[in-house]
């Protein structure tokens, strides 16, 4: 990649916020109101007037339309409105990349990346569709009872674990890390609900190899982050948290229908991760803390491998609660509690937690964290990843 075509250090996050996080159906507010609350909170965190926001970037067909948000907030103008294609949380870092690109290329000055999702209001992701007749691609899976995200992805994870001899304990460690970190995070829906090995082992299967605690929550809430140019970022209260890299994509024919993608047992990052590190001019050894999207723990396992933190054959040895802990672990993982135990805000909470680590504001702060990475939405297409860094990393 030629160095003049890069997002490295061009934009910075200057404000982040989330609404109160709720179990699905418990939010007193409608989804669009939650979106507004998060945007206003992020602007307050940055210390900017919300009417100065001139861009919105989201993903997964977020229902909170950018023009409606801009009008509702009385923004002076709308300069940029982008929706990252693809479902699931694969666009979490992709929406960030789009926002940073808009700023770097002079399309917009102040862009909010956000995700609002009220599963109580609009339907639970963990339930299958209720249609009487189905056609198209879904007709080849739904009638066989393959009908939820867990079903789509367990098939990939089973093959990966088989191919590389990965044990259930590796998935368990990933789950335990999220729950352990959530116990320090008052925002976490699972705060006050610790998890131990015996409870994990005794928990019911959702679909093998996923126990209940391998699966993300279903929640209501919204999250937002404010980005400006690197030049402007120095004028804000927070120390700038720079976007060192943000890329999205997927490998050859990742979207091949009915489970026919050639590289099947994969989180989908095999082409994304090299481009990420190339843009950041960093490698996995430089990452101080990782936020890796847990739709299901198996996705985290494959994301860790495909981003080069260990090989698939080393996964059993690498994925231990000690190694993944914020207190002294080799690779502190999901330090807010993540999608499993903080909130499933479609993964944008992971990007916010990465920023907090750079700011030194995490409830499970990794000492002297300079480089924080996010892997967004494994196993969907496109997926995306991002790396944030402090001033010292530029």
């Amino acid at each position, binding site marked *: 990649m030629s160095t003049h075509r890069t997002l490295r250090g061009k934009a910075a996050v200057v404000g982040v916020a989330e609404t109160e996080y709720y179990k699905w159906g418990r939010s007193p507010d409608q989804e669009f109101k939650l979106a507004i609350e998060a945007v206003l909170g992020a602007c307050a965190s940055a210390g900017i007037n919300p009417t100065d926001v001139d861009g919105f970037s989201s993903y997964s067909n977020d229902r909170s339309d950018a023009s409606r948000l801009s009008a509702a907030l009385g923004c002076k103008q709308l300069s940029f409105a982008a929706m990252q294609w693809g479902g699931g949380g694969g666009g979490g870092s992709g929406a960030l990349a789009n926002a940073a690109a808009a700023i770097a290329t002079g399309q917009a000055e102040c862009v909010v990346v956000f995700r609002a999702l009220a599963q109580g209001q609009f339907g639970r992701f*963990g*339930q*299958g*569709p*209720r*249609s*009487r*007749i*189905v*056609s*198209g*691609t*879904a*007709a*080849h*899976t*739904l*009638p*066989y*009872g*393959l*009908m*939820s995200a*867990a*079903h789509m992805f*367990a*098939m*990939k994870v*089973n*093959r990966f674990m*088989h191919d590389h001899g990965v044990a259930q304990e590796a998935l368990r460690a990933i789950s335990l890390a999220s729950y352990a970190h959530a116990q320090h995070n008052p925002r976490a829906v699972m705060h006050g609900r610790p998890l131990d090995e015996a409870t994990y082992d005794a928990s*019911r*299967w*959702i*679909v*093998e190899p996923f126990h209940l605690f391998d699966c993300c929550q279903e929640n209501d809430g919204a999250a937002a982050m404010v980005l400006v140019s690197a030049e402007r970022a120095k004028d804000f209260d927070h120390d700038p948290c720079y976007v060192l890299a943000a890329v999205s994509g997927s490998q050859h*024919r990742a979207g*091949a*229908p*009915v*489970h*026919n993608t050639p590289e*099947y*047992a994969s989180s989908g990052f095999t082409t994304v991760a090299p481009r990420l590190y190339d843009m950041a001019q960093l490698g996995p050894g430089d990452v101080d803390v990782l936020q890796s999207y847990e739709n299901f723990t198996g996705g985290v396992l494959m994301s860790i491998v495909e981003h080069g933190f260990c090989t698939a054959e080393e996964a059993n040895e690498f994925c231990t609660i000690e190694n993944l802990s914020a207190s002294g672990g080799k690779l502190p993982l999901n330090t807010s509690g993540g999608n499993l135990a903080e909130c499933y805000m479609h993964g944008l909470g992971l990007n916010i937690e990465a920023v907090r680590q750079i700011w030194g504001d995490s409830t499970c702060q990794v000492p002297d964290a300079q480089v924080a990475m996010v892997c967004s939405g494994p196993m969907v297409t496109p997926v995306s990843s991002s790396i944030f860094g402090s001033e010292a990393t530029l």
Partner: protein
Amino acid sequence: MSMTPYLRPGLAKPAPSRDGLDAPFWEGLQQEKLLLQRCNGCNRWQWGPEWVCHRCHSFDLRYEETTAEGIIYSHERIWHPVHPALAEQGPYVVVLVELAHADDVRIVGNLIGDPHQPLIIGAAVHAVFEHHRDEDPAHTLLQWAMS
């Protein structure tokens, strides 16, 4: 050979897509034939169906019968019901079958038999046609049994 439905009734029933892309597949199953896409340009198989061959970009694709045998590429035993029709089902098995006679394309179905049976990647399986002739729309599901 026909069989008792593997899953309890009430799940969505498959119908050919309105654009006609997969109609021969569903019609073939009703006649106990597995018809998949094959390219007249490069003679290779592809699945799921598409308007163009992903290898040679020919639009000239046909449906051709292939041997309804394969191996288990991956599998999953599902426990938690995500649909009311499955509330009393108990565990059931979905397999992803690789079809050696059709360039290793993959297809999804249930593995009939004991839902607690060992699930073995690489095990040989053969098709069993599960007819739903009296339903609206009439359709046939493609299921799999250990060979």
